[in-house]
């Protein structure tokens, strides 16, 4: 078992709260800045990396490169004030890829 750190990449307002919890935070002024920061994040040897939705929108192609390796696990979280739903859409795409069709949500899940 290896001990790894956890990183959060996003706007300063969203990620600041994670620092006191022991997470490594990578605040970016604009979501596009995360592209320059990404190699540093990968070099950090993190076990899990959380990116906010605006950052994911800018770095989706960079994240897709490491989709086939077990770590780091890159997960989309909503930013402060973002609408949400991007992470769920990302997962739905994976499901669609696997099953060849999207799975309709059941009523009881609503």
């Amino acid at each position, binding site marked *: 078992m290896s001990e790894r750190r956890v990183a959060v990449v996003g706007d300063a*307002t969203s990620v600041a709260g994670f620092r006191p919890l022991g997470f490594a935070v990578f605040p970016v002024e604009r979501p596009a800045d995360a592209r320059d920061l990404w190699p540093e994040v990968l070099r950090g040897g993190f076990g899990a990396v959380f990116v906010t939705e605006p950052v994911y929108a800018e770095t989706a192609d960079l994240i897709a490169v490491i989709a086939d390796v077990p770590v780091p696990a890159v997960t989309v979280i909503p930013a402060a004030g973002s609408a*949400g739903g991007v992470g769920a859409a990302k*997962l739905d795409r994976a499901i669609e890829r696997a099953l060849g069709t999207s799975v309709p949500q059941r009523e009881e899940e609503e």
Partner: protein
Amino acid sequence: MPQIRANPNRMELLKLRRRSATARRGHKLLKDKLDELMKEFQARISDNRRLRRDVESDLAGAFGLFALARAEAGSAALASALMAGEAVPLLGVTEKSVMSVRVPVFALGTLPEPGGYSLATTPAVLDTALDRLAAVAPRMIDLAEREKAIELLAAEIERTRRRVNALEYVLIPTIDATIRDITMKLDEAERGNLTRLMKVKDMIARQEASGGR
């Protein structure tokens, strides 16, 4: 159906039959693997949506509390209060194999106690916000682990399905068509030989009959 270029002889026929048997065995194995992967996949996606929704709503709640704290204390004071703390290795990472797909398993260690900021200059709601965030952190890690596994399984399912389809709809029918073709050509040659033999026999019989007379 396109065929494999092969000489129509018995040796090629035997080779193709062996290839056909191997391809069928491979197809069955891959199909079983695909079924098992689908089972694993279905089991994982069922709870994930709910978990994601909970995490997203809890995070939104925590962010709301941080916004309140920021409004009360001011951005600069809050930013300096949250500068405390440093990144520590929180996550025990192991890997396990699910149908030969390596998926990560995360074990979150104890989160450091948030602190290191002045209680006099920061609002009480900041403590609540940090507590809320600390409460959602284990579920975030759980979500990361599940979603990574789902993505890795999805990629493997796609790859396996492509292989199954290639075997089922391309390789096996091609080999079968070639086997049929070679069998027909060999049969044709066999019939040709038989006819020739019968004809020769007939000629000999006629010669003997005329010689005897």
